[in-house]
């Protein structure tokens, strides 16, 4: 399963990879779970498209399921892209500048068809001074936005999710005024962004994305945020990063990336093992490439990602191995090591200590504070202040 999905983790399928995929499919037997596993990784449409390009004959049920994923995401993306154009028109008329983040812009930038990049929701970055006005415009467009209009103070880096039912689906939209959440170590507001936006076009409407360096940094830090013992890394994020780096290799200021955003190069170094970088990109960005790591594409699968109850059917040795000695590939991403940096200390000492010691508990508490308690306290404070005015 891993190998098949790994082979589909690429922005384009070249002839060599197509051949490998066809060969891999011959020996593959677990077709019944492939659609759901592909969907978990955000790869459903890509897997469908690539297997078709490789002329692979699938069992009927798997074929229908994958085809269905492709069709649903294509339609969903059309609906959400159309919504984006309406938002763009309204915001532009009102003088609100905004940046489209993540999947909603990447779908139009680096994929052969927008529908190949599943879009779970829409994320927009605006200036903090514009956020309440932007919120009002969303309400005007029919979005339901949970906070009361009288509230002036904002609970966190971004407002609660706005939603609109359209085309038979619920479309969620998040307004951000900082590129990063409060529990991330970085902060980047609209005013602090680097210039030279990346532009995409849909139905005659121009959509602005982040500038190349900020885009790569944002995508890389997003994946690093999720490289923990609780949340999965989705392979589609790797396609985003490699695809973007390949498409915009000549526009990216690699000197700036090297000195100011080293996490980008570290991740490209690791991702080369699953989605080989082109000679052009390798020569331009001068990433350090090491030997292929053990367990390419294997996410963390021990405790606490899976509860002990869920792991109960496995042999103890396997549970211990998965928890204390996960794949080298995941360890390097998790601990921000590139393909050549020594792993010894992390594998035999730091990661096991992290699990055994209080560190992961502290991290969990830190996240709990930022995701649950702090917003509650902020809402309580906001409601008190509003009722006192």
């Amino acid at each position, binding site marked *: 399963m891993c190998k098949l999905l790994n082979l589909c983790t690429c922005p384009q399928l070249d002839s060599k990879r197509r051949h490998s995929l066809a060969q891999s499919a011959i020996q593959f037997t677990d077709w019944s779970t492939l659609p759901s596993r592909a969907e978990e990784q955000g790869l459903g449409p890509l897997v469908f498209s690539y297997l078709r390009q490789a002329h692979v004959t699938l069992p*009927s049920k798997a074929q*229908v*399921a994958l*085809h*269905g994923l492709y*069709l*649903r995401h294509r*339609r*969903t993306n059309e*609906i959400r892209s159309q919504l984006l154009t309406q938002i763009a028109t309204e915001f532009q008329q009102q003088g609100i500048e905004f940046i489209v983040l993540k999947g909603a812009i990447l779908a139009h930038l680096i994929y052969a068809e927008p529908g190949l990049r599943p879009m779970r929701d829409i994320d927009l970055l605006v200036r903090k001074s514009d956020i309440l006005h932007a919120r009002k415009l969303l309400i005007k467009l029919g979005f339901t936005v949970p906070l009361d209009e009288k509230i002036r103070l904002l609970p966190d880096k971004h407002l609660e999710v706005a939603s609109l039912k359209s*085309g*038979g*689906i*619920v479309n969620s939209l998040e307004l951000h005024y900082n590129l990063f959440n409060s529990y991330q170590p970085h902060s980047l507001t609209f005013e602090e962004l680097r210039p030279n936006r990346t532009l995409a076009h849909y139905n005659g409407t121009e959509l602005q994305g982040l500038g190349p360096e900020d885009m790569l940094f944002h995508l890389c830090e997003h994946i690093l945020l999720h490289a923990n013992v609780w949340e999965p890394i989705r392979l589609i994020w790797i396609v985003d990063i490699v695809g973007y780096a390949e498409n915009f290799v000549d526009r990216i200021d690699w000197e700036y990336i090297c000195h100011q955003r080293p996490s980008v190069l570290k991740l490209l170094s690791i991702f080369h093992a699953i989605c080989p970088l082109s000679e052009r990109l390798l020569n331009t960005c001068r990433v350090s490439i090491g030997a292929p790591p053990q367990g390419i594409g294997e996410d963390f699968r021990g405790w606490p990602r899976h509860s002990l109850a869920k792991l109960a059917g496995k042999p103890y040795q396997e549970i211990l191995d998965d928890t204390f000695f996960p794949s080298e590939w995941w360890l390097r991403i998790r601990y921000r090591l590139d393909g050549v940096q020594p792993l010894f200390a992390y594998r035999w000492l730091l990661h096991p200590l992290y699990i055994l010691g209080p560190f992961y508990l502290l991290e969990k508490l830190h996240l709990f504070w930022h995701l649950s308690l702090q917003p509650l306290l902020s809402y309580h404070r906001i409601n008190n202040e509003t009722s006192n005015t």
Partner: protein
Amino acid sequence: MKRQIPKQISNYYLEVLNDEFLLYHPGRNQIYQINATAALIWQLCNGERSIDEIDVLLLAAYPTAGKALMQDTHETIQQLATQGVIELV
């Protein structure tokens, strides 16, 4: 049943690829693989034609099919309604 009017549930789409007919909804996981006849019947369920009128149209298109066609049509419509792809008003 014959006077009931079958109507497509909104936001279902029909996709045809290599003789394969798929009915899908962007917000629902279930995909329905149907044959060409069922696809035609679904397309005729426009919320204005009764089942009687659909029978008449199909018999005109396939005059030799006879009663078997009517039975198939009713079964197909019933199945599509059970699957939640159409509603009978």
